[in-house]
């Protein structure tokens, strides 16, 4: 009755199949030869000894970044300046929207950013009160986009009801008013998505009579929802989590500091800003000449912005961060390195661009 392979051989075949298939699950990848452990210092000051790799959201030296927070914080775009016949200063800006770029936002984490001029946040637009601002907007993205500026302007320059399609262009034109700190962002629906991906920037209108000279910085408080679950995975001042903690911002003691702080955080209703070692005078939207308060805490809702003026009495390393510690432990933590002021100190802000 029995023919072909005897049943005992069948049994061995079965055993072999079982053995091979269980090996498939047992052997955990490639067995790596034991190496001598190396020691690492982490961003929280811990010491790790490991034969493997360290995953710590620091490690940028700034050069390999697509976006440089160091440069961004002092990078003001004053536009191309023409003085019109009536004496009005015309400032022309060129902004291009894209939505196809992948940026390394934290070491090893790659995220599809939507950008104005290849940057998140977009360029900081700066004009003087009364200037004519003309923005040549081009949409090189695959989706419709727009530019919506906060401030006083005509309805047709509001960038809300006319979205600019792929390859489209639009020229926004308005007078820079009022003096203060404003912002701009894409206003195409779903607005949350367009903002969360990075389509926003700061817009500064300097008063006709310039503010007191100071060392100036822009901090756009933002977040990144890299897994699209409606919660931010990362928080930061100027996009890159933990960046200024490891690249402390160098300032001088007894030097006036002015920070332009814009909160554009999505998904979380409230963001805040806490400064160590000193207090600041703050001006909501920068529209008043009298400070609203003298504090070391600032609570801001989405779209809120404040101008902060302060100086440090003592040199040293001082943090500034979200006092909402969840945000700070996900990257919105920064620091100032305050150095001893020298007598022949030159004001760092260049005013030659301003007429």
């Amino acid at each position: 009755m029995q023919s072909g392979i005897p049943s005992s051989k069948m049994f061995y075949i079965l055993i072999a199949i079982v053995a091979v298939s269980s090996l498939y699950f047992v052997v955990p990848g490639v067995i790596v030869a034991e190496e001598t452990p190396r020691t690492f210092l982490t961003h929280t000051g811990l010491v790790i000894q490991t034969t493997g790799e360290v995953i710590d959201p620091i490690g940028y030296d700034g050069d390999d970044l697509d976006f440089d927070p160091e440069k961004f914080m002092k990078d003001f775009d004053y536009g191309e300046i023409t003085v019109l016949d009536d004496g009005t200063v015309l400032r022309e800006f060129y902004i291009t929207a894209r939505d196809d770029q992948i940026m390394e936002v934290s070491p090893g984490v790659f995220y599809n950013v939507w950008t104005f001029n290849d940057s998140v946040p977009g360029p900081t637009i700066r004009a003087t009160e009364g200037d004519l601002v003309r923005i040549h907007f081009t949409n090189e993205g695959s989706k419709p986009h727009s530019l919506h500026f906060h401030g006083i302007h005509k309805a047709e320059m509001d960038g809300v009801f006319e979205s600019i399609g792929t390859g489209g262009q639009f020229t926004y034109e308005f007078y820079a008013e009022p003096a203060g700190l404003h912002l701009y962002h894409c206003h195409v629906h779903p607005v949350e998505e367009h903002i969360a991906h990075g389509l926003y920037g700061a817009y500064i209108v300097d008063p006709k009579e310039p503010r007191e000279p100071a060392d100036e910085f822009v901090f756009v408080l933002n977040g990144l929802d890299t897994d699209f679950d409606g919660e931010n995975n990362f928080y930061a001042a100027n996009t890159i989590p933990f960046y200024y903690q490891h690249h402390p911002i160098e300032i001088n003691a007894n030097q006036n500091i002015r920070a332009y702080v814009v909160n554009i955080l999505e998904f979380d209703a409230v963001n805040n800003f806490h400064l160590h070692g000193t207090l600041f005078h703050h001006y909501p939207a920068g529209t008043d000449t009298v400070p609203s308060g003298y504090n070391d805490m600032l609570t801001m809702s989405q779209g809120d912005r404040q101008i902060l003026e302060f100086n440090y009495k003592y040199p040293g390393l001082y943090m500034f961060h979200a006092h909402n510690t969840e945000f700070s432990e996900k990257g919105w933590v920064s620091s100032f390195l305050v150095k001893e002021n020298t007598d022949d100190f030159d004001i760092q802000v260049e005013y030659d661009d301003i007429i």
Partner: protein
Amino acid sequence: MTSSKPVLAISAVAPIVLLIIMVAFLLGPASSFLQFGIVLPEVSIEKIEFTGNEIQATVRNTGPVNVNVVLADVNDRIQPAAIEPDTSLERFETALVRIPFDWNEGQPYEIGVTIDDGTRFAKGIDAAFPSLEPDIDLFVFLGMIGFLIGVVPIMIGLLWYPFIKKLGKNSFNFFLAFTMGLLIFLGIDAVLEAVEISENHLSSVFNGELLIATVIILSFLALYGVGKKLTQKAEFSKLSKGLAISLMIAIGIGFHNLGEGLAVGAAIALGEVALSTFLIVGFATHNTTEGLAIAAPLTSTKAKIVKMIGLGLIAGIPAIFGTWIGGFSFSPFFTLVFLAIGAGAIFQVVLSIFQYMKGKSDLLSNTSLFAGISAGLLVMYLTSVLI
């Protein structure tokens, strides 16, 4: 009629060769053509351990594509960590994520990892529990637990032997049926436990439920063959049919106890259950019935005490090995496999007993059969409530 050997070999190999060519074609020239849809990466956190000042998570790439693990967090707060051997994980590859963290005992934690595309995967632990040091103390402790839940109750159960032996034929049938009831319950219990482990610990990529079904059937068929041989041999040798059946039951229960021991050992090691004396009492009471199951078929023969102890050890000792293996290196995969083997073995034993009873008496007493099975199931249910 008989074809030549080369032709036979070619006919065996040809489909395999064609299959290989097709796979090579699909992966090679046709791969771009077949690329559609979005491939989602997946990482599973298989195990979380708490040591001195560190939380250690074993992560496995259970998705279809290679990933890099680039960030670790505790309770959704970013923490610096080390990853061994390295950050890149190929399919099925595992890595150990070591997060220096001053954790608090008894507190719940959620451990997360983020991969290169920004997706975060997380797993929660109800209560942090210091992972056990693999030393001689733990070895003895786990061994004791295995001994208490496996060997001792079975030995106690075997003590029913003289009582059952003195019963009449109907009562004997009742007890055999009772054993069947016990075993059916045990088998179902093992399947449910395996499914639970599959859901909680095994990544879906392993197809846990299908694996359970496959292993149960394989185990059933394998033991059916072995059992047939054993009972056939019994007809020609001194080995009685009753003893052969008892041996089969002992082996089946042995597999079951190995799986159960793995689960208990793992639960201890992972700190997932507070292992109270009460739990041990529950397991022990429950497992006493296993001794009864082994003893029942023996009553038709003259069984030597040594043989009975031997059977008890075959059934009970695997629990000790189970707690050791489960406690020192928990593998949800193998726990599941052994539970499924146990289930298959037990269902096979139920069939053997049924056939044995049918062969023994021409008129199978329906009353004692149904009463026995029902009583067995109920007793098992009641003792299981104690756990």
